[in-house]
């Protein structure tokens, strides 16, 4: 195998055969080393939150990844390829320009299919909301749809004051039954205060300009079609496999809905609805 080992000869067969073998081994080792090095660097730079979202987004079912402009009917079919971060999407602004004649006015009501969804705030696809409170501070909470799905959590783990949050990274963690759920942060910012469900919000964060920081979040006239779609996704998620979707009769989603159907795999349903693979 090596020149210093007996039976090695400087013949073309030895040199070519072993040369190819060592090249292959070198490629394998160097590729694994590169992957390890990159992983180490990413970990040191605390990029694992962004990586987790990127990886989980790719694993989400196609139905969960549809573009917000498909939900509103502005386009027939489009799958998001920006991990729900419209700030980096070049197509999103073109839809905003065309939006006015397509969508009906937002209106004043804040009840959407029985859910309380105030229109004075912005909504994240992972069922959190953001409300600008002035002076660069935003309140963040769980929307009514999310609250009714999960009910009262067994435990809530909030980030410490001073923690930097990234949009689509972990906002806070909920524990319910045996499931642990990451609630996705709807925006970038630094935590300045923590609250409880009783406060109506969970976090207050300091972020940048509202027009910039919330551009990727749903608002106004987008809420109704989005909630309608979420109801459809929820129906599919709770339907037994092989049975298919049974259409609802128009009733409202009850509080603590998991209690009404203990046979359902709620861990899977919550994961589905809170955008976790």
């Amino acid at each position: 195998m090596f020149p210093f080992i007996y039976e090695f000869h400087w013949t073309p067969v030895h040199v070519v055969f072993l040369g190819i073998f060592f090249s292959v081994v070198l490629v394998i080792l160097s590729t694994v080393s590169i992957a390890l090095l990159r992983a180490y660097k990413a970990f040191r730079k605390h990029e694992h939150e962004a990586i987790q979202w990127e990886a989980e987004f790719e694993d989400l079912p196609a139905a969960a990844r549809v573009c917000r402009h498909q939900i509103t009917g502005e386009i027939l079919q489009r799958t998001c390829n920006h991990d729900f971060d419209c700030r980096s999407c070049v197509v999103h602004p073109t839809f905003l320009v065309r939006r006015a004649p397509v969508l009906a006015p937002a209106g004043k009501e804040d009840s959407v299919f029985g859910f309380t969804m105030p229109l004075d705030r912005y909504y994240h696809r992972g069922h959190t909301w953001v409300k600008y409170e002035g002076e660069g501070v935003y309140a963040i909470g769980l929307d009514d749809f999310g609250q009714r799905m999960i009910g009262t959590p067994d435990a809530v783990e909030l980030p410490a004051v001073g923690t930097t949050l990234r949009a689509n990274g972990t906002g806070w963690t909920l524990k319910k039954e045996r499931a642990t759920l990451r609630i996705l942060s709807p925006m970038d910012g630094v935590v300045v205060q923590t609250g409880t469900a009783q406060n109506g919000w969970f976090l207050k964060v300091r972020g940048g300009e509202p027009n910039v920081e919330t551009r990727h979040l749903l608002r106004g006239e987008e809420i109704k079609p989005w909630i309608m779609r979420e109801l459809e996704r929820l129906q599919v998620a709770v339907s037994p496999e092989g049975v298919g979707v049974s259409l609802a009769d128009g009733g409202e989603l009850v509080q603590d809905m998991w209690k009404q159907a203990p046979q359902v795999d709620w861990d899977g349903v919550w994961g589905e609805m809170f955008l976790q693979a």
Partner: protein
Amino acid sequence: MDRQFIPRGLQRSSFTRFVAWVFPWILLLGLGLYAMYLCLAEGLHHTNMDNRFAFGLWIYLDLTVIALGAGAFFTGFLLYILRREELKAVINSAVVLGFICYSGAVAVLMVDVGQPLRAWFTFWHPNTHSMLAEVTFCLTCYLTVLAIEYVPVVLKNRRFRQIPRFLVFEFELHKVMPVFAGVGTFLSFFHQGSLGGLYGVLVGRPFAFREVLGIWPSTFYLFVLSAAAVGPSFVLLTTWLVQKLSRKQLVKPEVLRFLGKVSGSMLIVYVLLKAVDTLYWINTTAPAEGAPAYTFYTSQGFGTWILFAEIILLGLLPAILLLIRRLRERPGVLVGAAFLACCGIVMNRFVMTIQTLALPTLPFDLLMSYVPSWQEVATFLAIVAYGVLLYSLSFRYMTLFPQERDIRQ
């Protein structure tokens, strides 16, 4: 009990039912491990092989599973190099199947060759003039590549994903997969080929001997081509089988149809070349060796039906069934053709090992018979059990079919 390890949104059987499923396979694995111990500790007299019948059940199994395991490299090649994105739906399953096939083959080789503690000799003092040195090097390297490709599949498990270091490593490893797909294709080309290349030196066995075409014997190319042709069929067949056993649709029908189309396209080329090679052997190679080809088909049990079955029934027929779109779109025909194609390679490797050694080569020779001992059969079954167990665990706790969640929607 194990719910926390099962991927979110996927339905799997109860833990009790799963244990009931794996228990018989564990017993079979245990029996096989005992047989392996007997062979390693006491010697190969526990087998029915001897100095003349040195290619037994194990080498036959090796050649067959390595050919079927080609589905891993060929699916990876199509996905990562030729960018056929639809194969994302089966790539994880193909990798697991490839890993099972190759690790199983290496385990059996370890028992067959014996003295596993001296396995490093083959690397330290390689006989570079032997095709088997190349096979050993390529097999080892490719098994390493398959193990590396298996790592992201394991690290994607939801519990491992909660560990940031694993998550980041899996993500970065996934990015370099095209490199491993390329290396895997390169290695597979050579070791599949070298297994076939062996017949270029079997001058004393005119039934299997093939002349050199370029720098390798014709069987070199035929082995590569047949493995690449049948690999996708094996992935198709196993996916269908898992769908039936789990009673779930795991991939969209068009994915299976695409695998069938690829397999059919490769298979028709293989069958044509195999036919040309056979005709050349009948008319030139065998007579030149002093043994007219018909003499090989006069022994009891080994008539010309084998030739017909291998090339026409299990080669040309499935190739045509897979190539004609109207037929391919019928699930029964698609799966049936894939099954026939897999049987074709099983038969080809049987012919190239067992039949090759059984046929008389000298005028005073008789047809040799060989029946594997229970230790050989138990070792063979242990590899099957190992495969079923590893695949069952992977299917339960990992996302082998990413479309499964999508289809539910």
